[in-house]
């Protein structure tokens, strides 16, 4: 973490190399988080880019002591997603495009299986409570620690852990239900 603190400090001062490191580290995670929330490739691209534009505009006001950088960045991402749904009058969708799946898998059968699993996952995540969904997508999509998730959402870590536990239990039931059907 001290290394990242140094990188963030340099980015705040206008060091492009430092900002590039942050972009490289977080772009994929932001994209994955947004994609899990929207289920749409093009929307995820636009929103992920917009998150970094917002981050760039606001990075001068960022203070490490208030909140970890990852939490700060994903708070922006969360707000972008919420704004996106509000602006477009949408509810979170459960359908999922196929085009986003990693294309370098060894066989068409495996790709098809992955697509199915991802569609099923997105479908099931959409059935969680909003709070569980937020925690699960930040924890698994963005790979944030529980502490970072709690800072991003403004909830205490005990609540986040409980939401995580209940979310995984609910997902398990939903997945088993899908298999039995």
């Amino acid at each position, binding site marked *: 973490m001290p290394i990242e603190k140094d990188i963030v400090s340099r980015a705040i001062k*206008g*060091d*492009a*190399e430092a*900002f*590039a*490191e942050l*972009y*490289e580290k977080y*772009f*994929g995670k932001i*994209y*994955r988080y947004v*994609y*899990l929330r929207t289920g749409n*490739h093009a929307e*995820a*691209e636009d929103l*992920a*880019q917009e998150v*970094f*534009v917002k981050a*760039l*505009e606001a990075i001068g006001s960022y203070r490490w002591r208030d909140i970890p950088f990852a939490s700060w960045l994903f708070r922006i991402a969360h707000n972008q997603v919420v704004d996106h749904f509000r602006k477009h009058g949408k509810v979170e969708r459960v359908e999922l495009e196929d085009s*986003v*799946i*990693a294309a370098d*898998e060894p066989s068409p059968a495996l790709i098809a299986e*992955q697509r199915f*699993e*991802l569609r099923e*996952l997105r479908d099931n995540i959409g059935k969680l409570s909003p709070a569980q969904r937020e925690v*699960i997508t930040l*924890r*698994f*999509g963005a*790979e944030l*620690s*529980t502490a970072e998730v709690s800072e991003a959402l403004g909830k205490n870590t*005990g609540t986040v*852990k*409980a939401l*995580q*536990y209940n979310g*995984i*239990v609910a*997902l*398990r039931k939903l*997945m088993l239900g899908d298999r039995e059907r």
Partner: protein
Amino acid sequence: MNRKIEDILDECLDRAFAGDTVEDCLAAHPSEASELKQLLGTSSVVMQSCASIIPDPAFKVRAWHYLGAIFHDRFQRIKSTGAVPIWRRAWTMAMAGVLVVLLSCVAVLAASTSALPDEHLYPAKLAAEQVRMTLAFTDLDEAKLHLEFAERRAYEMVEVAQQGKADSLLALAGQVAEHLGEVCVTDETKGVMEEAAAALAPAASLSAETEDRDDGADVEDLGALLSQSREENLQALEDALARAPEALKPILRRTIDSVAKDYDRTISIVESGSSQ
């Protein structure tokens, strides 16, 4: 005091993200192993599915370039002095990683260099040009690339003229004009090139003007349109040459020669078609 299952699950997930196996965690918490096994099994499925969500590398490069421009505007610490600004070098260094992936498509790109409009490798050729444009270090580099691509489009005009494809021909003439219109070199020459771009507008709209024409468009009209496009493009280039920075002048001269020759050959082919 017994720890809550939520805490143990959280610890096991942290270990899983760090590379530990489910078995490692079950061994560390034997009394909760039964419930943990189910929860971690579900978690593994979620992790694997999430790992397969990857952004398009080409989009990542484009987004990076877009951010680079914003970054530059925000932190204008280095004025344009002819040297390569540090922020662009850093941006480009990091882009090199993404380029490794793109270069794996080098065989396709090599094969596409001679592709013409309507051929299946032509989009790869244009994509490769876009990548080169994205990686241009300076405004001057971008200007040089636009001139190079204008020359390419002019050369392609000759080829498609030989194939008798009037629609592609006029579309390419429009693209020549578009590339030349994009040559905004530096702050001091930007005004000049914008004037040039405005002068090019009639040529750029050639495609639109001819959209309603029949497939067997009158060849004489086609020749006249191409001649008009030639004059306007070359005049705009000459105007730009007179006021361009020294670094760009040799390339502008070469472009004028090359574009003029290609236009002449194209017009000749079109007119010889009309006399047959």
